[in-house]
C-alpha cells in the first residue's frame, strides 16, 4: 500500500522546488507544473517500475515521455528527487551551460529525458514508437506519456491517436492534463476542445476519467485501473482534471501563471503555504 502521507510530503517539497527554480531565473512555467505535481509523484514514486541509474533504451522498465515540455520544472524536480541526478543541480535551471534547459532535451545528456519536447504535439508519436519497440523487443513494461489539453489543438496528436488505436498499441498509457487553460485564456475561449472523452472513444481508445487529478489516492487508483486496462487491444488515455497552480492559493483558478515567475514577496507567500519536508536543495 502506498504511503499517501509520505507521497504528499514529497509533492509538497517538489512544489517548493518548482517555485524556487522559476523564481531564481525569473522565467519558466509554474502553473502547469504545480497542477501536475501529484501526478508526477504518483508515477515516479509509486506506480512506474523505473531505474534512476537511467539507460536510454529503458529495457525492462516503464518509460515516460513529457510532451508538454514547458512544465519542465516539475519533471526536473521529480527526476532529481527520484535520484536521477543531484538535487543541487536544480540550481542551474535555465542558466547558461546547464543540463536543465528551459524545455527538456537529450542534448546535454540529462538522465531521465529520452526526447526533446517543447514544440507541442510531438510527444505522443514518440511514445507510440517507443511502445512499438517494446513490443518488438518482447518487453512487457509500459510506456507513459503526459500531454497538455491545449496541446491537443496540434493536429499531429490526432494522427497519433488514430494510429495507436488502429494498430492496437495497447502498452501505451497517455494522460491528458485537463486544466482547461492555455496562454491566451481558457481552452473554451481559445479553441474549444469539445467532448474529449467522446473523441478518444470514437478513435478507439479506452478512456478513464480522473475527476480530481490533484488527489494522490485518486491518481494512484486510476493509474492502476489504466494498467489493468492495458494490453487488451486498445491504447488507454486518462483524462486528468487538474487545478493549474495547485497548492499556491494565488496561482489557482487563473491562467495568469502559465509562464510567469513569482516575485520575492509572492515566493515567500507561496513557500509559506508549502513548508519544507525533505530539505531544500
Amino acid at each position, binding site marked *: 500500500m502506498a504511503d499517501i502521507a509520505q507521497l504528499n510530503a514529497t509533492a509538497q517539497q517538489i512544489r517548493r522546488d518548482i517555485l524556487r527554480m522559476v523564481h531564481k531565473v525569473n522565467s519558466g512555467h509554474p502553473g502547469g507544473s504545480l497542477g501536475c505535481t501529484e501526478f508526477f509523484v504518483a508515477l515516479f514514486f509509486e506506480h512506474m517500475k523505473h531505474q534512476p541509474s537511467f539507460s*536510454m*533504451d*529503458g*529495457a525492462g522498465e516503464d*518509460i515516460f515521455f513529457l510532451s508538454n515540455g514547458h512544465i519542465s520544472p516539475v519533471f526536473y524536480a521529480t527526476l532529481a528527487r527520484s535520484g536521477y541526478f543531484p538535487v543541487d543541480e536544480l540550481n542551474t535551471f535555465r542558466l547558461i551551460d546547464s543540463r536543465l534547459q528551459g524545455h527538456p*532535451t*537529450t*542534448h546535454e545528456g540529462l538522465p531521465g529525458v*529520452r*526526447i*526533446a*519536447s*517543447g*514544440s507541442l*504535439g*510531438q*510527444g*505522443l*508519436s*514518440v*511514445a*507510440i*514508437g*517507443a*511502445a*512499438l*519497440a*517494446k513490443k*518488438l*523487443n518482447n*518487453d512487457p513494461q509500459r510506456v507513459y506519456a503526459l500531454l497538455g489539453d491545449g496541446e491537443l489543438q496540434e*493536429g*499531429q496528436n490526432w*494522427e*497519433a491517436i*488514430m*494510429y495507436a488505436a*488502429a*494498430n492496437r498499441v495497447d502498452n501505451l498509457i497517455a494522460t491528458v492534463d485537463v486544466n482547461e487553460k492555455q496562454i491566451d485564456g481558457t481552452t473554451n475561449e481559445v479553441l474549444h476542445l469539445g467532448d474529449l472523452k467522446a473523441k478518444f472513444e470514437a478513435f478507439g481508445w479506452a478512456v478513464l476519467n480522473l475527476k480530481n487529478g490533484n488527489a494522490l489516492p485518486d491518481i494512484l487508483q486510476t493509474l492502476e485501473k489504466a494498467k489493468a486496462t492495458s494490453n487488451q487491444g486498445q491504447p488507454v488515455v486518462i483524462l486528468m482534471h487538474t487545478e493549474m497552480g495547485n497548492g499556491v492559493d494565488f496561482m489557482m483558478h487563473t491562467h495568469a501563471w502559465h509562464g510567469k515567475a513569482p516575485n520575492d514577496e509572492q515566493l515567500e507567500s507561496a513557500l509559506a503555504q508549502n513548508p519544507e519536508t525533505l530539505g531544500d536543495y
Partner: protein
Amino acid sequence: MNPYNNQGNQDTRSGFGAGLSVLGAENPNVVALCADLTGSLKMDAFKADHPERFFQVGIAEANMMGIAAGLTIGGKIPFTGTFANFSTGRVYDQIRQSIAYSRKNVKICASHAGITLGEDGATHQILEDIGLMKMLPGMTVINPCDFNQTKAATIAIAAHEGPVYLRFGRPKVPNFTPENQAFEIGKGNCLREGKDVTLIATGHLVWEALEAAVSLETQGVSAEVINIHTIKPLDKEIILESAAKTGAVVTAEEHNYLGGLGESVARVLTTNHPCPQAFVATNDTFGESGTPAQLMKKYQLDREAITAKALEVIQRKS
C-alpha cells in the same frame, strides 16, 4: 570519351529498395515506416519479407517522424519512406525537435526529389530539401548518383550512428558506378581527371557532368568530374585539391542554388582557395509539369547547361 559505361537505366529509388532488402535480411534492428507510398518507394520487398518490422502509418508524415524517433529509443534503426517534399518541408519541426535536436538514429529516405519527379508538378517537386536538411545540426545529407550507389548508400547509413537524410529520385537514369561498391559517407569520388575546370555534381547531375566533360573535351577543354554524394559533411579535401589544380569550378545539382551543394562548395572555396565558380541549379523558382528531360532542359540542369557554364567560368580565371 566518358570513362564510365551506362549499365542500363534504372531508378535510384529502386536502389534504395534493394539496399533496404539487404538490410532487412542482415540486421534485425532495421525497421521501416512508410506513409502510403510503399510501391513508389520500392519498399514492397521489405514489407513482404519482414511484416513485423514494417509500419504503414498512413498519410500522416508528422506522426511517422515521431514514431521513428521513438523506435530508436528501443534500439531500432528506423528508415522512413515518402516523397522528398513530405520527408522534409512538411515535417521540418518534427525532424528538428524529435530527431535532430534529440540526436535520434533515424534514416529519412526521400524519393521523387527534385524537378525530375516530372508530371506531378511543383506541389511535389521539392527543390529546397538539401538546404532544409543541411541546416540542421548533426544531420548527414546524402544524394547518391545512380542505382548502384543508392543501394550502397542505403546499406552504409544503417551502420552510421545519427540522423541521415538520404535523397533519391523517380526516373530511370544511367546506372554507371560499380555494383557492390564500398560507400564511404563524406568522401567524394573523382570520376574523371582534368586540368582546366572542375565539375562538382551530385545526384542525377553526376552523369550529366560526365557527358558534359566529353563535350568539353571535343572543344579542347579538359574537365575534372567529382561526384559529391555526401553534401554534409562535405569532402573539403577533394574539392580544394581539384580547385587548386584547375582554378575554376562548376557545381551542378537538381536543387535551388539557394541552400544547395553549390553554396556549400562556395563556402569551402572562399574560406580556403577563392576561385571562380558557376552554378548549375534552379534559379529561385518552383518547378512545373513536364517530362524529366523537358524540365532538365528548360531549367538548365542538363549536360548542355553544364558545358555552357564551364566555358563561361573558364573565362573568369585570372
